[in-house]
């Protein structure tokens, strides 16, 4: 690796000052599992790493007004094992459980994963389906970005130079709502998926028809993607095999996957349709259970 300056700020303002000092040559460092790997492979050569793990409070996971607030430095393992997340957003705990190995999850952070913006990651897919917003801190203060607008291209985000991810705000599931995440893993358990799918389904008051749905897919493009056409098809409908097949086909048509050793582009499109249907079915079942509970 190439030598670099190293800073250990205690506050977000200090961290932002260090980032400003080095401009685009500085990178925030949290867990480093992605950053150090990219540096070892000489894909990036930052002049300065700003370790933000010493910033107090940045690893908190808290319940706020209808949301779970997860600090940027909370590790994947923190989220996976959080009693709050397990109670309020079990699908998110389940999603983080599927990332890599415990060794990686002990270190890799929520904010780092978002800033890394690898389209094969698991968590962004579920966070998209849940309607999460990214809390971004920069010289001008804090701004919130819907996750739909956060990923712009392959490993690219809408973060400007000098900004960093401070946390993510995740709405808790509403009434008559269920969510599910599925990862198609034909190789090893710690791998990225061939495709991933997450769905959040809200049923009508009778618990029969879909009132609203949010569906996201991973590993099928340069960013994780919403399956808007499939969401539209589900609205107002009852659950049938034909509906799920039609939703899968509707999503499939809009995808442009990158073929790799986990599957060709054509195979990923087919599997995206299949796993979309399965994720919706699982989310629907949980929504039904939730609707039954509230009646």
């Amino acid at each position, binding site marked *: 690796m*190439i*030598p*670099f300056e190293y800073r250990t700020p205690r506050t977000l303002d200090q961290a932002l000052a260090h980032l400003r000092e080095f401009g685009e040559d500085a990178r925030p460092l949290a867990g480093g599992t992605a950053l150090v790997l990219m540096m070892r492979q000489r894909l990036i050569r930052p002049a300065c790493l700003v370790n933000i793990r010493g910033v107090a409070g940045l690893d908190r996971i808290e319940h706020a007004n209808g949301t779970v607030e997860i600090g940027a430095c909370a590790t994947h393992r923190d989220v996976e094992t959080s009693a709050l997340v397990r109670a309020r957003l079990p699908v998110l705990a389940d999603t983080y459980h599927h990332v890599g*190995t415990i*060794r990686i999850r002990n*270190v890799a952070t929520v904010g780092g994963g978002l800033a890394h913006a690898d389209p094969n990651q698991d968590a962004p897919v579920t966070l998209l389906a849940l309607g999460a917003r990214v809390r971004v801190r920069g010289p001008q203060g804090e701004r919130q970005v819907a996750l739909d607008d956060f990923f712009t291209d392959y490993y690219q985000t809408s973060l400007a130079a000098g900004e960093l991810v401070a946390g993510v705000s995740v709405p808790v599931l509403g009434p008559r709502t269920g969510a599910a995440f599925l990862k198609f893993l034909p190789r090893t*358990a710690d791998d990225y998926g061939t495709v991933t799918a997450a769905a959040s389904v809200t049923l009508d008051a009778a618990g029969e028809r879909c009132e609203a749905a949010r569906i996201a897919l991973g590993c099928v493009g340069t960013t994780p993607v919403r399956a808007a056409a499939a969401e539209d098809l589900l609205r107002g409908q009852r659950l049938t095999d034909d509906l799920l097949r039609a939703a899968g086909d509707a999503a499939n048509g809009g995808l442009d996957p990158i073929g790799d050793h986990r599957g060709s582009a054509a195979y990923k499109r087919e599997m995206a349709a299949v796993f979309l249907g399965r994720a919706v079915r699982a989310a629907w079942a949980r929504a039904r259970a939730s609707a039954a509970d509230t009646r």
Partner: protein
Amino acid sequence: MSRVEAQPVLSIRLRVNGKDQAVRIPSYRTLLDCLRSDLGLTGSKEGCGVGVCGACTVLVDGKMISSCLYLAVMADGAEITTVEGLAADGRLHPVQQAFVDHGGFQCGICTPGQVVAAKALLDANPSPSEADIKDWMMGNLCRCTGYYQIIESIKHAAATSAAAGKPAAGGAAGRP
């Protein structure tokens, strides 16, 4: 010479296997390289170098990590446990003894990572089910044993520790 001086060199403090260490290192040194090259603790191995194989597994403040992807400066002030810290008073840690007794290794290259990961498991969960063991050890690759002897070894280590009436967390690093 001037090139060396131009590199940012940082002073860090680590508590490694119960012993305080002060180290001066370049910023880019991984914890694995620091342990092996600066501190002479060559038990932890570099296998894949990309955080996948588990041969470099060590504990940082009790949590297992891949030391090949962890910068040494990130561990400043932390308590590190390596395979060298498991045996105490001339006696192998129960996990190590079980690996010996039940054929938990053949060539041995993955073994330091395996036993450190297994110690972390038993610290967190003294009586794991087979499913718990598989879930926890999933990221420690072995190309010799076929894994079943490793699983057997960990089951026996848990049973031995339970019979001895103490958690498997023996060794220098397990002491307060």
